[in-house]
């Protein structure tokens, strides 16, 4: 009896230490974000004179107003949303199509196809960017939204690979019974296989959305003109004109953070599932 009490006490202490430890981590995660939020509501004078961890005494919205007036926020948001929607949808369709073929059929060039595939997965996109740049301008889509879109959807071998892993787990007997019922291969893909990978599609789609939303160097390289800014490149150009103006820059940073953080808060569970699926199934 005494022993269990002691055990409980010890367990309580361990748990308290753990909580404290987590609290410190939480603080480290939130400190930069918190300071930025504080700064966004202060004036330039307050930034120079007040202790940065002091919360703003009154909410000074002018910084946000300034960013909206001068920062092309709506153009950036519009472009980012177009990129995200188009690339997530088309990517899901094309990736599941390839994955369906590779997980279900045998054909002459399959081995070679697969080999090229694995090789492509090993090569980081960045490496080929220099050569890709010439192709994009030759095809005539430089400085259009199409340039990042074709790159986002054409090069994501990882997603195809994960879809394949999911489809490999679906027993072939399901296809066969659909086939006996007279379904064509296309019907099987559309009515049987695709619906079964919808959960994976949700997960991978959200990951893709976050990636596209936050990407910097593809829009930076391929869409230099002002009307083609995404939220990310809009932030960069705004910052380059306002260096040292921390309150306004902080407001811009927060505006840019909001879409993905909102996505994250709503779809947290799916994001974790996607990361885990990508890793454990490799």
């Amino acid at each position, binding site marked *: 009896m005494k022993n269990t009490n002691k055990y409980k006490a010890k367990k309580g202490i361990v*748990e308290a230490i753990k909580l404290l430890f*987590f609290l410190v*981590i*939480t603080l480290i*995660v939130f*400190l*930069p974000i918190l*300071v930025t939020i504080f700064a966004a509501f202060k004036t330039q004078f307050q930034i*120079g004179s007040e*202790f940065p961890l002091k919360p703003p005494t009154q909410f000074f919205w002018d910084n946000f107003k300034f960013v909206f007036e001068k920062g092309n926020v709506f153009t950036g948001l519009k472009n980012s949303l177009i990129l995200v929607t188009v690339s997530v949808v088309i990517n899901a369709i*094309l990736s599941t*199509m*390839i994955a*369906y*073929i590779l997980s279900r*059929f045998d*054909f002459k060039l399959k081995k070679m196809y697969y080999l*090229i595939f694995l090789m*492509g997965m*090993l*090569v*980081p996109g*960045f*490496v*080929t960017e*220099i*050569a*890709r740049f010439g*192709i994009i301008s030759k095809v005539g889509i430089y400085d259009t939204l199409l340039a990042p879109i*074709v*790159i986002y959807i*054409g*090069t994501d*071998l990882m997603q195809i690979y994960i879809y394949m892993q999911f489809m490999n787990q679906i027993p072939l007997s399901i296809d066969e019974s659909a086939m006996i019922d007279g379904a*064509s291969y*296309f019907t099987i*893909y559309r009515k049987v296989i695709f619906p079964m990978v919808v959960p994976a599609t949700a997960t991978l789609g959200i990951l893709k959305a*976050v990636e596209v*939303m*936050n990407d*910097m*160097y593809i829009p930076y390289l391929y869409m230099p003109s002002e009307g083609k800014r995404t*939220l*990310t490149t809009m*932030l960069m150009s705004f*910052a380059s004109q306002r260096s*040292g103006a*921390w309150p306004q820059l*902080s407001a*811009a*940073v927060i505006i*840019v*953070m909001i879409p*993905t953080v909102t996505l*994250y808060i709503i779809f947290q569970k799916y994001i*974790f599932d996607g*990361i885990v699926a990508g*890793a*454990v199934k*490799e």
Partner: protein
Amino acid sequence: MFDNRNRQKNIIIVSFLIIPTILLALFVIYPLFKLFYLSFTDWDGMSKTIGFVGTNNYIDVFKDNDVWVSLRNNGIYFVIHLMFIPIEMFIAFLLDDKVRFSKTFKGIVFLPYIINGVAVAYMFSFLYSSQGGVLNEILALFGANPVKWISSEETVNFSLSAVSIWRFCGIHIILFLAGIQSISKEMLEAARVDGASSFKVFSKIVIPNIRTVIEIILFLNVRGALMIFDIPFVMTSGGPGTSSTTFTLYTIQQAFKYSHFGKASAMAVVLLVMIVILSTIQKKIISEKR
């Protein structure tokens, strides 16, 4: 009936693969070959005539002092991230236990990874700034002298690595956690019943059972450290001088700032080779320990 099926099969294979294959060929395969080709030329990115210069670009890359400086900087990111791996593993181990709020903590730890990288870079620029920057103000509270976090050659790479740690630790922790959660609960219970301490459980059961995850994270670490780009690009653009240039940043600068596409291509090829070699070595080391 059978013939019909076969024809249908061919039709679906061709029609489903045609668009993705064209995209892959155009934006993954062809650029790769083009890259090798360009690395032997003096192309400036614009001109129609491309001069063949043999291995000159590669020799140039090896002789370029700034390349070595940038590689050393990548090395700093690599080593610092490597040092954090045991800590990340330990945090994941703690999160796995049914601690109160562990789900919330999981969400918090992962948050930085979701935030826009450029936004993160500016956030930390403010933290490190010399005018009203948070870190120096906190130091001042204790009467310490201000530090030139990102404007001095000695500290800049460590300051930038800290940002990278802040941003990427979360994903490692989540991956480790996934590995730990795939270990059967019975095995862990059995060890505990036999009186093994938490440390023993961690070192004798958890670590050996998450080898694959460790392998993946080491691979991500090699790749990530070699490819680190947006943090130095936004925060210091490689400066002061070239003290925080990374290999990828220097490559991009060579191509798009100085129009040395040939040399930049050679650097990209070198990067690819380095990633392949380092990953292979790491894989060898890990599988030998098994």
